[in-house]
């Protein structure tokens, strides 16, 4: 197991370097430092001296190889530098963004996963009946609606018409949950269509397996088959999806957070997009990719824990 883990982590290193290279190439080679400087200096017609000063200050004047070295070295050590726009340290922004992102994303994720699996079991149980047909059709309808619309409609219906929750804002303390309820609900609703369809397919695949027929033949109740046999066996793809989602709880959702005014990392990214803050976007790309790679490693570990065959295969290598 430890050997497997080590191999898996070592394999991730080239990917991290690749991500660094892509973001370096995109940001440094395609945009000239002058255009970046012009964009970010506040005066309308900056003097050449001002531009030069900005370039030197942000380290864009050194040779390319040297820049890549410092760029990568700093990212690897989590020295993120300062924002292109307001020159505040990015690390501070990220530190203050983690909390709100997690507070929104964790409940949304837990409720969403539970609701999705429950609904998928429900429609799978009634497979081939009207419940299944219409249920599946509803899920196709739901996944055809843009997430933008879920958010706008949710704010309008629950926030403005029914006045059940504040439309936007965020406040630490006992009242935090009030600001979380609406975005979390909207997030769950927006995600249901696609994921229930996916889980339903996974479960129906299991339902055609021989062991289900055997269980039925020996007289097991349909609900026992569903919960004991099918749910357990469809855990692998579900685990994959869940483990892949966990790292992204940290980065939050760009759209949700910007619409609902939650000062998390998604909102940070949104502001950076609006103001053209390349330094922040670069860091977010790096963190996002690191978390993704972490997610794949987590997935592989959970495979190894859940499925003995993977463990044995890994040991044999």
């Amino acid at each position, binding site marked *: 197991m430890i050997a497997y883990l080590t191999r898996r982590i070592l394999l991730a290193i080239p990917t991290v370097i*690749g991500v660094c290279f892509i*973001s370096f190439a995109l940001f440094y080679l395609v945009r000239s430092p002058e255009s970046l400087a012009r964009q970010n200096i506040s005066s309308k017609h900056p003097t050449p001296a001002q531009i030069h000063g900005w370039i030197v200050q942000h380290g864009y004047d050194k040779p390319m190889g040297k820049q890549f070295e410092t760029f990568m070295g700093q990212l690897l050590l989590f020295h993120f530098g300062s924002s292109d726009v307001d020159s505040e340290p990015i690390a501070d922004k990220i530190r203050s963004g983690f909390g709100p992102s997690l507070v929104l994303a964790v409940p949304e994720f837990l409720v969403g996963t539970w609701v999705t699996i429950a609904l998928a079991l429900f429609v799978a149980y009634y497979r081939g009946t009207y419940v299944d047909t219409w249920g599946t059709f509803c899920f196709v309808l739901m996944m055809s609606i843009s997430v933008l619309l879920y958010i706008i409609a949710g704010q309008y219906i629950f926030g*403005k018409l029914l006045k059940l929750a504040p439309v936007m804002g965020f406040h630490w303390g006992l009242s935090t949950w009030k600001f979380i309820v609406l975005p979390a609900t909207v997030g769950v609703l927006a995600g249901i269509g696609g994921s229930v369809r996916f889980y339903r397919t996974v479960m129906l695949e299991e339902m055609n397996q021989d062991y289900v027929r055997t269980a039925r033949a020996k007289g097991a109740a349909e609900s026992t088959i569903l919960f004991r046999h099918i749910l357990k066996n469809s855990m692998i793809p579900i685990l994959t999806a869940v483990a892949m989602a966990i790292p992204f709880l940290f980065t939050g959702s*760009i759209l949700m957070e910007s619409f609902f005014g939650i000062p998390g990392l998604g909102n940070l990214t949104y502001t950076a997009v609006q103001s053209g803050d390349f330094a922040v976007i670069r860091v977010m*790309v790096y963190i*996002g990719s690191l978390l*993704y*790679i972490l997610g794949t490693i987590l997935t592989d570990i959970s495979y190894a824990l859940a499925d003995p065959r993977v463990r044995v295969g890994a040991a044999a290598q």
Partner: protein
Amino acid sequence: MIPWLRAPELKEDLITLLVIVCVLLSARALWVSPVWHDRMRRLWRSRAARVALAILAVYALFAVMDSIVWHNPPYGVTKSALDRVFERQSERTYSAPLAHQDFGVRNPRPLKTWHLLGTDGVGNDVLYDTLKGCRTAWIVGGFTLIISLPFAIVLGIVAGYFGGWIDDAVQYVYITISSIPTLLLLITLMMVMGPGLLQICIALAVNEWVGLARYLRGETLKHREKEYVMAARAFGVHPLRILQRHILPNVFHLIIISATLSFSGLILSEAILSFLGIGVPVGTGSWGLMISAAQMELAREPVVWWVLTSAAVALFGIVLAANIFGDAVRDALDPRLREG
């Protein structure tokens, strides 16, 4: 940034026609091919598929109408067929669907003409704006696939068949790309390239080829070990010919299924990017831009609902039709993947 990407509308017109012609030609090729005819018939027998196809065809019709452009000799005004049929006089400000006067101002004045879906804040006809979005949607869905499919097919199959360092290289590239979260990669690419319809297609294509290439590589790995490929290899058939004559036909249905199923996702992504302000430039017909401009209108008193609703319904219609058609294609082409 890249000069030829910044040219005026001519390119969009040509691309729309290219997309539609490609779709029609490949549909015809599949219909007349002896191997595919049965599966195409099976697809056609599904009523859901026919209805969805009809809806997609209506959107395509508007897209083509918007791309056929000609001059009026005396004044030299260039307008598309869509402009000539649907363009209406601008009003001063909002007006409700089929209303006779301005909306929400103290002294409403009569309108110059009638508007089926009303007008937006600067008085533009909402129906016309909405129809303008059809071309954008078809370009984003179709042209992205035209760019990304060749990469996905060639790289996926070659990596799977030859293995070795080619496989390692291809895998490395797509693992690296896929480890950047999708929306962040799209944002990065769009910020670097600047807003524009073709830039969106390129950015989406960079994301898009990865999934299919990975899938095709896996399928090719399976086929590589089958007897018919072994036999071909034993006869000394050139590897490229094996790929073309033996592997490709056996994975071709997967390519078609994947392409139709991803069409809707591409359109939704464009709406989000345009909404964030890094998609198509302002002035292009786009439902994402319309939603972005209309998002605060629900907070007005009295509520202005028709701009948002029109854009949302148009977006929903094409995405739903594409999803239903994609499901029908999957059911008809690959019985093993059929649900239920």
